[in-house]
């Protein structure tokens, strides 16, 4: 055999392997558990109640953003902060158990160890972006509930038989908040905090985990718990948290829901199982004290969750483009897609390229895209070319094509 011929394929494979962590074959006996169930002395060691609570809080906030009759700016901000404006105890939620929590959505927005622990000015800016959107919903959109929207005027637009409520630039603030939290809260906490060695291996975590030193009053080691908290941001509100894939998509309006959407696209339908398997194997590796396998799984999760956010961003941009590109442009449908897309683009700054300390798109790149969507009269002015260029730019950072996102 011609050596050159042999060399080229090897080179290509080498390149492929070095950038595709998911195919790595760890030298280990660990099996991937079929369910996310782990016990010690016959009792479960799995816990992510804080994540479940924040998902529920965020879902109540989502609903309240559209409750024109009952919501006030004060109430919505209290839902975001779970506090009054001066830091006092607030009871904004319909579920009493959430009111009793001291946790809040806001405290974990843009709050990861890796990205924001020494970047607090940006963190504060991001936290307040959400407050601005919440306030503007009440101050700009609520008063125009019964006005037809047009360029420069907030109000209603028809999207099929649904009425959408947009600001003067055609954006739905509730969608900005809901889709933005996918990145700013869930992905950031998961990818850049709980799955990071800076958190998993903080202090004496490794030693404690090796020696089964449990957190006081619990049945888990700190490291086990950190990993579970990452898991909780995708599967924490599932009906069956140990075996969440059969009902994937039903658990929340955030990562779980959009992970479920991938099942409908043949190009990406295997991703949910891959993400679940990585969580389960990584957790088994922590129990076994195999930190190499653990970290390999963390990289897989970073890659796939990030990719999912990228896929959704491009999907909505393209869907909007198609709705605008017709004789009678469907502004209501397109603006709804672009509002969702805006939130997912915003979320891209919280993604994480495996084995780096970088997001797939920087904050500056994200801000650049968002500025293009909001300049002038905003969505009313946006060109099809802009949407295509943006789609291509985003897809080029990932391992998928614009065409593949179309389902």
């Amino acid at each position, binding site marked *: 055999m011609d050596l050159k011929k042999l060399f080229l394929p090897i080179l*290509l494979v080498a390149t492929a392997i070095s950038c595709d962590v998911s195919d790595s074959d760890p030298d280990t006996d660990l099996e991937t558990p079929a369910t996310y169930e782990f016990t010690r002395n016959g009792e479960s060691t799995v816990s992510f109640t804080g994540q479940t609570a924040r998902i529920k809080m965020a879902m109540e906030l989502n609903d309240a953003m559209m409750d024109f009759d009952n919501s006030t700016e004060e109430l919505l901000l209290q839902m975001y902060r779970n506090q009054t404006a001066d830091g006092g105890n607030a009871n904004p939620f319909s579920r009493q158990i959430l009111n009793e929590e001291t946790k809040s959505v806001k405290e974990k927005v843009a709050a990861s160890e890796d990205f924001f622990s020494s970047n607090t000015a940006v963190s504060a800016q991001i936290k307040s972006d959400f407050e601005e959107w919440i306030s503007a919903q009440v101050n700009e959109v609520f008063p125009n509930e019964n006005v*037809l929207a047009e360029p420069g005027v907030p109000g209603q637009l*028809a999207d099929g038989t649904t009425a959408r409520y947009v600001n003067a630039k055609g954006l739905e603030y509730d969608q900005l908040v809901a889709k933005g939290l996918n990145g700013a809260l869930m992905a950031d906490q998961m990818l850049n905090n709980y799955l990071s060695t800076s958190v998993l291996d903080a202090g004496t975590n490794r030693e404690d985990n090796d020696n089964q030193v449990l957190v006081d009053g619990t049945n888990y080691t700190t490291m086990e718990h950190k990993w579970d908290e990452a898991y909780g941001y995708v599967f924490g509100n599932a009906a069956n948290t140990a075996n969440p894939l059969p009902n994937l998509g039903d658990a929340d309006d955030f990562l779980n829901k959009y992970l479920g959407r991938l099942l409908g696209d043949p190009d990406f339908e295997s991703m949910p199982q891959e993400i679940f398997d990585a969580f389960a194997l990584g957790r088994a590796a922590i129990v076994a004290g195999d930190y190499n396998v653990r970290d390999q799984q963390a990289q897989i999760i970073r890659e796939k969750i990030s990719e999912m956010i990228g896929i959704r961003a491009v999907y909505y941009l393209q869907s909007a483009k198609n709705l605008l590109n017709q004789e*009678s442009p469907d502004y209501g449908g397109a603006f709804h897609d672009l509002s969702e897309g805006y939130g997912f683009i915003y979320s891209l700054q919280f993604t994480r390229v495996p084995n780096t300390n970088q997001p797939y798109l920087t904050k500056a790149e994200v801000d650049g895209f968002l500025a293009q969507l909001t300049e002038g009269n905003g969505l009313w002015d946006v060109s099809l070319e802009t949407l295509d260029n943006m789609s291509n730019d985003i897809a080029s950072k990932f391992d998928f094509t614009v065409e593949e996102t179309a389902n």
Partner: protein
Amino acid sequence: MAGVSVFNQIITMKKIVLLLLGTVMFWGCSDSGPSGTETDDFDRQAILVNWADNIILPAFEAFAAETESLNSAANDFTTEPNAQSLNSLRDQWLATYKAWQHVSMFEMGRAMDIRYRDNMNLYPVNTEEILENIETGSYAFELPSQNDTQGLSALDYMLYGLGADEASTLEFYTTHENAEAYRAYLSDLTSRIDTLTDEVLGHWQNGYRDEFVSNTGSGANSSLDMMVNDYIFYYEKALRAGKIGIPAGVFSGSPLSNRVEAYYSGEYSKELFMEALDAAQNFFNGTHFGSEQRGESMRSYLEFLETTKNDQSLAALINNQFENARNEAQDLNNNLAEQVNTNNTDMLMTYDQLQQNVVFMKVDMLQALNISVDYVDADGD
């Protein structure tokens, strides 16, 4: 190892080729002009002329006459509300609702711009909102959020849903403390139905007809492609799903009897469905409105192309399938709400027959006519 390498190489190359291909295709698609070429030398304009002059315009003219009568029947009733004027109004409402089934599918031109169908016949109606509108006397029907408080479906509620029987219905318009507001709302409903219809008909009469029949090309923006797409969209969403599938629980898992058309009057939902089924089949066949005569149509186009499926004429298969759906529906209860509550299986079987024609038309026919589907299902949030 060598074997694995080659395999991986193939994968990698495939990816690159796919990527390149994808990029090329992507740029190819981003041109906004009409795409596709003439499939054949069939006279497409002959179809457009037949549709416009023998079906669409006559159907709209007939419907506009009904909406005008409806408006005056409502005026008679509100001027002198009694059992007789109520029954006249109810009769005229039913006649109008049946005529509506012949124009509902033509959601193009001005009808598309004003979202005519959503303003005329969205159901279930929002009764809470209707009562609030009556209470406050303040409402703007042109707002999208008011789609489910108006139209023929809102009249169904106003004429049959307020009271349990004729006498108690009349009370709302006579002795009720807010009777004047009820009468005013009723008048506003019929007046808007009439006004919107005049607007759509007027647009067809004053220029749009000529624009429509002269846009003879092929491609996404040609009249033929747009009309066929609108027709199939109507068949799939409004007829198959709206009238049968949604109440039968096809999309929700369990039956939703309150989702039938004309729910409050009770006994007309099947009749309206049958009327719509006839209208849809007539349009496929190019049958002139109010006559047996046929002209150029999707059917004659398919026959010209001699399109077959499993060695059978596709046009014949589609007509046969319309017939199957009609036969299956024949034995349904006049009140489809009762039907889904007592024997939903028969309702589901009707749905299955309707669904088969989605396949014949949306897949096989569109392929034969070289027309691309121009709508996608929303992702539902």
